[in-house]
């Protein structure tokens, strides 16, 4: 069933300024026998209101005296305040949740209600969504101009269709995946997945594999590292939690076991089922080019599950307008279209093209075939995606650039990736012809492009996987290519 929305946002700049200057006091009421997830929902609502309005949000078990605004959180049966206020609640069943404002009673009320404790949690995050907050796996983005809470009229019911697979699959085979994510990173990720209503996380890792060298970690960060600004003063790129364990193999393995258990425990606390992948399951190789916009799609998928009248095209404005401003969604949509064209082309033409690993780039140096024509087409799509995203970024003036700029730089990474491969093919061809000058020129271009890849990501790296791109490009592109150049110079 569809979600019903009749939210009217009244932006009251003066109220916002008053709010930020003094901060209103808002009472949040959760039932005295509320489930842990309902209490979590109340705390999350409090945190949202504090961040949006500078509000002092007091969480309690009973309606406070007076006529001040109150947020009532719970299932219809778990919170007596719903009945005390005689609220006409939307009907919710199974996993439905609802957020509704009431202005016609003795006091302003916001009902945050769900059919189950997990659904109550979803309702708390829906309140944030209706007030303009947007959740992504990398974090929350807040609206530039939050609407007036006192004047907002919200009547939103979410009825998850359960037709969409809101399962999050985590692999650990490569630093680009989740091999470098430590406890803090995972807790933050699970928190975001919880906001996006992902109910299940599948871990494709054993402690032994996670601790071992199969993940490709650690990767040295030395003084000649492109994009090193992303690593601060670290000497290696690694899973920080595992690295803090003893350097003895047993210590790292024990830490990996603890990490995986922490993920399960934290998932349980947040109402997310964490399971292990079936043994023997085929794990897709990590592709550096295919997952550059996965953050956005995790959010879009979650939203489409409760807002099916949106399409992937129309939901761009819904997701982005509160945080980026008007007309940004359309540009982002075009950017992603171009990126997806590139992705389809690459997958159709060479499904190993974006798989980063040893010899990945050097195989282009040794390849005897000429530069494939589809590379130029792929690069053009990546560049178009980058340019569209930069236009979106320019337009997203008041806030929202935390969303657009990273994608622009990631698409730049992809275009430069193609440049590395192309220059290497030319360098290899020149070497076979005995044309040392061209060989060196093309190798230098390849190194320039590898450097540009790293710098593009370094400018916007915010997760361990982002930093992994930089570390892996140094390991498998920049450093091997420097060696090739030295060899060519020495000939």
């Amino acid at each position, binding site marked *: 069933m569809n979600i019903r929305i009749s939210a009217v946002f009244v932006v009251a700049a003066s109220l916002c300024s008053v709010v930020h200057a003094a901060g209103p006091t808002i009472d949040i009421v959760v039932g005295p026998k509320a489930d842990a997830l309902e209490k979590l929902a109340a705390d999350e609502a409090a945190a949202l209101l504090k961040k949006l309005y500078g509000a002092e949000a007091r969480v309690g078990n009973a309606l406070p005296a007076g006529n001040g605004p109150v947020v009532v959180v719970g299932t219809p049966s778990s919170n007596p305040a719903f009945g005390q206020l005689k609220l006409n609640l939307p009907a919710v069943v199974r996993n439905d949740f609802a957020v509704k404002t009431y202005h016609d009673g003795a006091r302003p009320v916001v009902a945050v209600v769900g059919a189950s404790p997990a659904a109550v949690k979803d309702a708390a995050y829906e309140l944030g969504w209706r007030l303009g907050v947007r959740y992504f796996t990398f974090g929350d983005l807040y609206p530039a101009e939050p609407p007036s809470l006192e004047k907002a009229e919200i009547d939103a019911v979410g009825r998850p269709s359960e037709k969409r697979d809101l399962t999050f699959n985590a692999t650990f085979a490569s630093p680009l995946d989740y091999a470098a994510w430590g406890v803090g990173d995972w807790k933050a990720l699970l928190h975001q997945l919880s906001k996006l209503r992902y109910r299940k996380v599948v871990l494709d890792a054993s402690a032994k594999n996670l601790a071992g060298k199969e993940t490709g970690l650690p990767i040295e960060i030395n003084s*000649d590292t492109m994009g*090193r600004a992303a690593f601060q003063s670290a000497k290696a790129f690694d899973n920080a939690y595992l690295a803090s364990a003893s350097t003895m193999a047993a210590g790292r393995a024990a830490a990996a076991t603890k990490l995986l258990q922490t993920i399960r425990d934290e998932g349980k606390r947040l109402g997310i089922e964490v399971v292990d992948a079936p043994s023997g399951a085929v794990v897709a190789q990590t592709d550096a080019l295919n997952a550059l916009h996965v953050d956005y799609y995790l959010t879009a998928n979650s939203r489409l599950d409760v807002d099916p009248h949106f399409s992937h095209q129309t939901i761009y404005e819904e997701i982005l307008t509160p945080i980026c401003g008007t007309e940004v969604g359309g540009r982002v949509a075009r950017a992603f279209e171009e990126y997806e064209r590139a992705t389809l082309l690459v997958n159709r033409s060479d499904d190993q093209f974006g798989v980063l690993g040893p010899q990945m780039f050097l195989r282009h140096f040794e390849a005897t075939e000429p530069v494939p024509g589809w590379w130029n087409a792929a690069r053009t799509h990546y560049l178009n995606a980058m340019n569209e995203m930069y236009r979106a970024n320019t337009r997203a*003036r008041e806030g929202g650039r935390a969303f657009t700029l990273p994608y622009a730089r990631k698409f730049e990474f992809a275009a430069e990736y193609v440049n590395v491969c192309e220059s290497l093919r030319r360098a290899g061809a020149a070497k076979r012809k005995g044309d040392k000058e061209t060989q060196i020129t093309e190798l230098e271009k390849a190194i320039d492009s590898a*450097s540009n890849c790293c*710098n593009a990501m370094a400018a916007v790296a915010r997760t361990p996987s982002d930093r992994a791109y930089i570390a892996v490009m140094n390991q498998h592109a920049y450093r091997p290519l420097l060696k090739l150049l030295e060899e060519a110079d020495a000939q």
Partner: protein
Amino acid sequence: MRTVGYSWCLVILLAAIANADDWPQFRGPNGSGVSAETHSLPTEFSTDDGKNIAWSVKLGDGIGCPIVVADRCITTAMSGDETFSVLAYDAATGKELWHTKLATGKLPRITPPNSHASSTPCSDGKKVYAHFSTLGLIALDIETGKVDWKFELPKPAYLMDWGAAMSPIVYQDTVYFCQDDDLAPTLFAIDAATGTLRWKVERTDMLAGYAVPVLCTAGGRTDLVLAGSGKLKGYDPAIGKELWTCNTMPRTVMTSPVVRDDVIYISVQSYGDETRTLKYALLEWLDTNQNGELTLAEVPKEFASRFNQSDKNGDGVLREAELDTAFQSPDNMVGGGTTIQAIRGGGSGDVTKTHVLWNVKNKSPSNLSSPIVAGEQLFVVKKGGISSSFGTKAGESHWELKRLGKFGDYYASPIAGDGKIYVTSEPGSVIVLKAGPELDVLARNELGDSIISTPAISAGRIFVRTKNSLVCAQEK
């Protein structure tokens, strides 16, 4: 090849300084980047093993360059989300002498790799003069760091959101600050003692630019010289009167000129060719829906008034001819291009046809790294560590587009001293060359951190402001 003697010409010090070893502003004496002192400077140094590293301190984010005055190394940083800091250290030991924090208020939009703490301060040995976009100019006592005066400036606005990064200079008791933004480009002259305005010149034909003013003495007169969009101009520093203009610059000037004797040298790379006026950039980046027109919603709010003035037919849309001159002066419709020029100082009026000594147009210039003139050598470096060198007499080529062996971006400008040129890369390398007409790399040093700002030289020490630290290198 004839061997050219590269004896060091004394750089004419036109600013009052506390001692001869001072590096009192962006790129030192008169912005030349050249140290005339006789101390030997380290060739090899590294934070990896501490070789020839005298000291280092941690700093907050910032790309303003360090200065050295009266045995103090002074720099700036963001020490909190909305806190701007000016810090002074003992140049010999790195001991913090004072740290002044200033609340900035809400910060404006900027584009990486710019930082909010982007301006380089200057000093006359009595006060330190610093700029911050939301605060204007601030004067601090050099002994204590106490704020002496503040001069509020209009908040700069940029069509492409680059953000502020201009730096002041001080000369004969006057602080000069050129705020060439896209909205209200203006040159200010402020009394250094009192912080009151002496004069200002509205440079209405300019677009955003970041050149630092320099001084050029020619024909018995010292002019304040500014490179800007399309034009290099000379002003009377006492009253701000425009004395001459040389209309040979391309559209976007982010580098600063340097002066040797009575000649001004400049190297500029501005995107596109001569036909690429501002309109093309507007249609590429501000025209969000790519329909070939601009609406008010598509330009930054600060430019609403300019938009409305340009909207001749009042339909709320800028198109065609309206776009041509909406934000670029019709008197200065210059496009892109690259150039390295030598222009003789002095003159009167339009000197475009009379004072350009030579003009080299090739791919050598960087858009951000300024040239250095050391002796009779003009040296430039750009992204990828690609360097070129020319003779100052006629722009004759020594070498062109040769790599220095370290890749990455090169934002900082070269500096020179002790017969050496120091070139700094963003990934953290400091490459040392022997100054002269042949490329001779003496060392490639690693400082292990991103470097965007230009280092300083003083009393045998090199001060490098990295992304997270201030490092002092000195022969041990």
